[in-house]
């Protein structure tokens, strides 16, 4: 369970959001500039709230009242970025292995095989990110985040920088991920259709505030 109640001043923009989600996939919906990315950056620990608290399954990650701030690298929260952010100096296999190495986890070829099969990236292992298509990069980025064995996966517009054809290529993988990986996700998007397919719960964000919270049906009428 993800529980969050934070505020943050970002220039002229004030983000003030609170919600509690039990959902398998919490869809964070809103137009650009609504504060979606800032919000999940706070969940990831990349951005520090001015005031408030964040907790996962009862474990406090941020609590400004008690000066608690767990740094990003100790949160075990996976993050899939819109712009992939694969390490250009490492090949695909090394990118996939990065989180395991950094967390000091034992090698687990079964898990690795399962993830590379799930995402169909087993043939790309020796390649450099520079030699991959956009869709392949995003699948590798998904695999990299999964293999760090996170307890929560954040996806920030993972289809945002892909064209329509590539989106159709990635969507089925995201559905499989939701149904098979067993990791709760927060899925950020400005695309209602995408969230209808993937999310189980919706948090609607408008100008830095949560306006609606509920099941996927709250998206009816939204573009």
């Amino acid at each position, binding site marked *: 369970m993800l529980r969050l109640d934070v505020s943050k001043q970002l220039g002229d923009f004030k983000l003030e959001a609170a919600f509690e989600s039990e959902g398998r996939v919490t869809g964070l919906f809103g137009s650009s500039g609504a504060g979606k990315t800032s919000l999940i950056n706070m969940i990831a620990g990349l951005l520090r709230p001015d005031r408030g608290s964040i907790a996962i399954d009862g474990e406090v990650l941020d609590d400004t009242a008690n000066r608690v701030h767990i740094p990003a690298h100790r949160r075990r929260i996976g993050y899939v970025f819109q712009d992939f952010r694969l390490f250009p100096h490492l090949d695909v296999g090394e990118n996939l292995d990065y989180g395991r190495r*950094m*967390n000091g986890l034992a090698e687990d070829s079964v898990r690795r095989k399962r993830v590379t099969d799930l995402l169909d990236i087993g043939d790309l292992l020796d390649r450099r990110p*520079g030699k991959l298509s956009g869709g392949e990069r995003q699948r590798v980025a998904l695999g990299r985040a999964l293999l760090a064995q996170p307890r929560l996966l954040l996806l920030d517009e993972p289809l945002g920088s892909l064209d329509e054809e590539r989106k159709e290529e990635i969507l089925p993988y995201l559905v499989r991920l939701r149904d098979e990986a067993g990791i709760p996700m927060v899925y950020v998007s400005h695309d209602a259709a995408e969230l209808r397919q993937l999310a189980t719960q919706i948090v609607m964000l408008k100008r830095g505030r949560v306006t609606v919270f509920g099941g996927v049906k709250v998206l009816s009428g939204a573009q």
Partner: protein
Amino acid sequence: MFDISPTEWTAILLSLRVASIATLVATPLGIAVAWLLARRDFWGKAVVDALVHLPLVLPPVVTGYLLLLTFGRRGLVGEWLADHLGIVFAFRWTGAALACGVMSFPLLVRPIRLSIEAVDRRLEQAASTLGAAPWRVFTSVTLPLALPGVLAGMVLGFAKAIGEFGATITFVSNIPGETQTISSAIYALISTPDGDAAALRLVIVSVVIAMGALIASEWFARRATRRLHGS
């Protein structure tokens, strides 16, 4: 004409040793300073930046004299080092290495700093979400991506150290076999009657070393770029 005499060999080998040691010792320090200047905001940053660049704009003889005052036998730091650690810089080849290290430091730091600044911070963020502590983010992402700049800085620093003259001769004088580098040997030879041929030989040697350094840096840079873009 091309019979290099033992004295000349001594100067050449000493120059190579002095410049290599100066570069190897200065590089880790240079990487640390470059990282601080590129990635951290702290009180006194402008002062650190100015201090690093000072040897570039000060007359070398001033830098050499300041080194003599600080690291000489009776110098503030020099006396303490000699008494407690047995490290002596004055009129030793180690002093020449120190002078070369200080003089080449700004040239070493600059390319490293620029290449660290050019590393995409979003990749560093991605690394931290994958569980990498700040130190490991640096060693596994920032430093490998900044490697071409580090190599460029090392080569530039080495080339500067090989050619350093003013600060070295002021700080450690011009003692054959101990502190006489190629530059100070050339200087001594051209003020000696019949020294022209020997001076010319050393001039050719320093041109060859400088060219070699430039070619090596180009080669390293290409290799590093290829490694990064993976072909």
